[in-house]
């Protein structure tokens, strides 16, 4: 007999197994694929399920590929010379680095205040113009009714969560962001908040509707095992679209 699994381990195994069986929705798959990068146990559970079930693939009847399939594949491959290459720092990064070293020089020369002003002006100028969010949701504490976080979405669907106050997370638990667009479809996970309290980009979203619900729930460390919020909702709010 193997030792009994903890409820948390059962949830992790069931989630990883359903993922490998192909039973999760596109949103759930996107979430699991993001979560496994941060969660070594979930990642290993998925790899183990792939390993366990793979013999089934070998029992399926093989089929001849179309005659030109290999040629089609080679035509789609990047030339070997363009194989993965380290990313070179962008122009902006290098200019910023230059400004930082200049700052050291200016500080030594006793012009720190002036330098700082120049630096702010320069980086403001260098930074791409800040996009205006097309939808904003202010999430309020369920109990306190105090603003706890803002969700902003920008043209193209890029989304950003900005916490406004620290949120206590018990050890082994995690905060999960959800949105509800269509009650018939149910809430969609936008992912687990990183453990730091800074702004976080959960990826891109379909266009947000006025009144669309966003909420943050407290979940097991690997996220909700069911694909739906299971823990208490800590923060909740609806999207508003600024005019214009």
């Amino acid at each position, binding site marked *: 007999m193997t030792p009994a699994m903890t409820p948390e381990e059962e949830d992790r195994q069931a989630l990883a197994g359903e993922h490998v069986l*192909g*039973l999760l929705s596109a949103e759930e798959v996107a979430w699991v694929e993001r979560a496994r990068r941060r969660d070594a146990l979930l990642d290993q559970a998925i790899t183990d399920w792939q390993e366990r079930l793979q013999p089934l693939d070998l*029992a399926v009847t093989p089929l001849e590929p179309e005659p030109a399939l290999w040629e089609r594949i080679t035509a789609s491959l990047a030339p070997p010379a363009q194989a993965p290459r380290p990313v070179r720092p962008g122009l902006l990064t290098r200019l910023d680095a230059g400004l930082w070293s200049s700052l050291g020089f200016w500080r030594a020369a006793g012009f720190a205040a002036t330098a700082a002003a120049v630096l702010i002006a320069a980086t403001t100028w260098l930074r791409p113009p800040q996009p205006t969010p097309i939808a904003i949701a202010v999430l309020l504490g369920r109990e306190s009714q105090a603003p706890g976080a803002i969700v902003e979405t920008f043209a193209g669907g890029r989304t950003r969560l900005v916490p406004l106050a620290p949120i206590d997370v018990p050890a082994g638990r995690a905060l999960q962001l959800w949105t509800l667009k269509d009650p018939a479809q149910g809430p969609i996970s936008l992912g687990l908040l990183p453990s730091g309290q800074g702004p976080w980009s959960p990826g891109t979203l379909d266009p947000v509707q006025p009144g669309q619900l966003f909420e943050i729930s407290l979940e097991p460390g690997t996220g909700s095992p069911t694909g739906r919020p299971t823990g208490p909702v800590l923060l909740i709010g609806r999207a508003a679209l600024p005019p214009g």
Partner: protein
Amino acid sequence: MKPVPDTSSQPQAALRDDRFDYEAALVACARGDRRALEAIYAAEARQLVGVAQRIVRRRDLANDVVHDAFVQIWNRAATFDPRRGSGRAWIYAVVRHRALNMVRDERFETGLDETALAETPDPAEPVPDLLVRMAEHAALRRCLEALDEQRRTCILLAYTDGLSHTQIAERLRAPLGTVKAWIRRGLLSLRDCLA
């Protein structure tokens, strides 16, 4: 824990029943060696088209899946980590992922549509036949055969035919919640049995 294959030395690790060294081939792909990718293709393409076909149900799409998957295998070979799993399972996971993505959107839409559900074609062959084709002593076969029939059928319909919870419920004429519970319990029993 899996032993760490020594990918730096000769292909052909001990204790493998397959002659092909998938781990070494993936490491070579990551270095940009096209012959390694071609070797994987030569060894697995027929089986992979068969796996994709069962999920996407159309031969042209199955070929597209394998095409896309080999491009991904080439581009992502460097992310394969032999300490965490076997190269062969990694390769099949890439193909399955691609095939499931192709049917997922359609499948979840049709999941809400009774007419479309009724038109879901039957799988190429009934699922129990798959087990018979696995080696009799294979642990996975033994453990699948030890499951309740309904749990086993659900797991096989999901894995090899790419059916969703809703489609399985329809196929087995069972409530959706029951199917979800069968699969969860089935997975946990399977894991215990294979531990």
